[in-house]
């Protein structure tokens, strides 16, 4: 008969037991502490809820009705109540333009809110700052514009981006250097947002975006700039796309193809001619779609070549692109499908539903 302890280290076994016990106790104590903190938070919220619900209802009623204002000034409210008020306003006005924005302006003026909004935008919890900037973006006063501009140089990246978005919404001039600077410092984790802001600013952001295409700090910023340039209806580009057709990152080549679809220049034509034979099938697929969007019948040869691509999705995209070209493309697709049984089903679908999904 053996005893484990005779052959092993009993101290090691005891250590396992003690460590397990200690860790389990500590984590359960932590959970208990968290539950207590949460109970306190919930209790505080419950206490405030009635008052805040009343305030919310009051604000909503005012917004819905033709308000004749005889209410307290925002300055008299607690900081938390101010936050709720701003959040209600933002929730109500977030997607509104025109007449309803005018009512927001009336309300801000009548309640003397702008000073508080400007102060909150400059300092405080990030969420409150973002909300305040969103409300300020819908005002038309010089002081609110000044505040937004001041926040552009804030240390907090998301706040700077929110200020940029606020300026874009105000349709005011944004110096190209500032745009480039903010993009360089924030794009890495905010590609979609930055692309959206570029598009919102529109042609005024062209210079900044082209600068970022020429000298990108990273791939994400380059992608955001290319995406932004594609969606704002520019008549020409002053940056050459052809060199980017050989960019090592396929996602960038796809964006280059998407951008080339918007401009009928020698450069974009040469660029697409390279991308048609890209080694990455996803790039060829996007290129086919881009060729269809250009609707240039003298480029149909590229699409006919892509109808024989080894990858099915590329063939499908080429078929859909030919349909986008109009009658000439449709006839060409029908003819190609007659000679190629593999294309029959694809052509039938593409001809039934004009354009890609």
């Amino acid at each position, binding site marked *: 008969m053996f005893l484990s302890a005779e052959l092993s280290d009993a101290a090691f076994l*005891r250590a396992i*037991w003690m460590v397990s*016990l200690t860790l389990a106790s500590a984590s359960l104590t932590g959970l208990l502490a968290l539950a207590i903190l949460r109970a306190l938070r919930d209790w505080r919220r419950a206490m405030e809820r009635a008052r805040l619900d009343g305030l919310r209802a009051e604000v909503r009623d005012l917004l819905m009705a033709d308000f004749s204002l005889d209410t307290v000034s925002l300055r008299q409210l607690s900081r938390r109540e101010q936050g709720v008020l701003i959040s209600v306003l933002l929730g109500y006005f977030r997607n509104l333009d025109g007449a309803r924005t005018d009512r927001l302006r009336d309300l801000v003026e009548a309640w003397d809110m702008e000073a508080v909004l400007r102060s909150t935008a400059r300092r405080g919890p990030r969420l409150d700052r973002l909300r305040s900037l969103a409300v300020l973006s819908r005002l038309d006063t010089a002081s609110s514009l000044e505040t937004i501009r001041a926040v552009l140089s804030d240390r907090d990246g998301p706040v700077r981006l929110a200020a940029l*978005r606020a300026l874009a919404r105000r349709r005011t001039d944004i110096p190209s250097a500032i745009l480039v600077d903010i993009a360089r410092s924030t794009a890495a984790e905010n590609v979609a947002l930055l692309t959206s802001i570029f*598009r919102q600013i529109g042609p005024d952001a062209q210079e900044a975006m082209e600068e970022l295409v020429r000298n990108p700090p990273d791939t994400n910023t380059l992608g955001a700039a290319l995406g932004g340039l594609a969606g704002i209806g520019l008549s020409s580009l002053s940056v050459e796309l052809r060199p980017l057709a050989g960019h090592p990152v396929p996602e960038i080549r796809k964006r280059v193809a998407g951008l080339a679809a918007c401009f009928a220049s020698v450069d974009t034509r040469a660029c697409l001619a390279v991308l048609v034979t890209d080694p990455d099938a996803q790039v060829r697929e996007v290129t086919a779609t881009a060729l269809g969007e250009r609707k240039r019948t003298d480029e149909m040869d590229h699409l006919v070549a892509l109808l024989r691509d080894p990858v099915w999705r590329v063939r499908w995209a080429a078929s859909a692109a030919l349909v986008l070209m109009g009658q000439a493309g449709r006839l060409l697709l029908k003819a190609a499908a007659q000679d190629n049984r593999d294309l029959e089903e694809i052509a039938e679908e593409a001809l039934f539903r004009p354009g890609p999904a």
Partner: protein
Amino acid sequence: MIGFVDLFFFITTWIVLMVGLVQNLIYTGYLYPAWREMRRRANAYDTEAAREALRRGEQTPVTLIVPAYDEALTIVDNAHSLLSLRYSDFEVIIVNDGSGDDTVSRLQDALELEPVPRALNPGLRHAEVRGVYRSAIYPNLHVVDKENGGKADAINAGLACTRTDLFCVIDADSILQPEALARATRPFQEPGEHVVAVGGTVGVANGCTVRHGQIERYDLPHRFVARAQAVEYTRAFLMARLASSRTNTLALISGAFGVFRTADVVEIGGYDPTTVGEDMEVVVRLHRHLRQAGRRYVMRYLPEPVCWTEVPSTLRGLSRQRVRWQRGALETLSRHWKMVFNPRYGRFGMVTLPGIVLIDVVGPVVEVLGYVLVPLLWAWGTLNTPYFLAYVGLTFVFGIFLSAASLLLEQGSVERPTNARQLLRLAWTAVLENFGYRQLNNIWRFVGLVRHFRSAPARWADVGRTGFSKG
């Protein structure tokens, strides 16, 4: 002098202890990177930006593939729920996998389906498609009616009809968060990384009040079996997947919700219809293919709940599910055995897959052996008290630490709707689930292991769901 039998028991009991220790260390190792990932991702979603993108129609087009088998009772409601998602450009493809009930005719009546020509990508294997239909009411809803072939087969048929760059696979009975797609497609918009797949946290919907296809009020499951799974989802799934996401070694994206880049999945031939663990298999095959091709890629996991699902609330239903999961994991491992400890596959081959071997193959056998052997030997006086305490520490007490620490990190890092009372109930469940629930789980995994080697055929699993509010 030590005899042969004594030596056998000595070695066996130490293997039991060491395997338990390594398993627990692996789970402990997940905690820190998972917490870091949660902190990093917690504020990543910009509601205002997402709303702006929705308003301007700038969201990446996605196809939702919904495999359905005998879902006649709920399919129309589910279709309406999916069509009300807050997303600017998406298509829904419901794939009827040869249901024996009137799933298709209910869809036909409610959505006015009409046949449309739809070319099927020939690079994907699936059973014969009887027809493709489009709703006359909702032009972005298609129904693919096909012969029965299993869930993976149904997904392949949907994938063959997919035209968008991204597709999302969801279970027909899953409840998506309204902003789920906006959250899950965001990582794909970063051109600096080639993102091939994004998974999201699946919440336990048992106990919640569901109205119009949305979670109206959050609550914990009423039944212990379901509540224990809520703790388990945090400890074993959320922490492990977040940690793997941080090191780009994610081995599984839940079949209940996952967004993939269409071209990459088509390139590997789609899902494998011959396995019950199609969700894990496709992810492992993607790793294999992309690493063999020397391509840089990323798979991400989001800590926010993107989808809610009803978990089995009876032991019978749970046992079926766990046996099936275990078989799925083992099938995947046996198909990709060459990747294990293969430096060609980097951290995924050297760390992740060996970890799965330890937890899914060696773990259940050794743990079940331990449940029988250790108490017996201790009762007979063969094992001393320090060993017994160490075993109890690793098997029961350390499990409490892992569950409680996971809950603590999750609840403290990410905004969750849990109130203090619910948190205390979860803490209590984290203690209790280590006495019975965890052991049963290991026994079911052991059964799955045995059945895997008997190679019974794969089929859609009935896990005995009862409805959200009853769970």
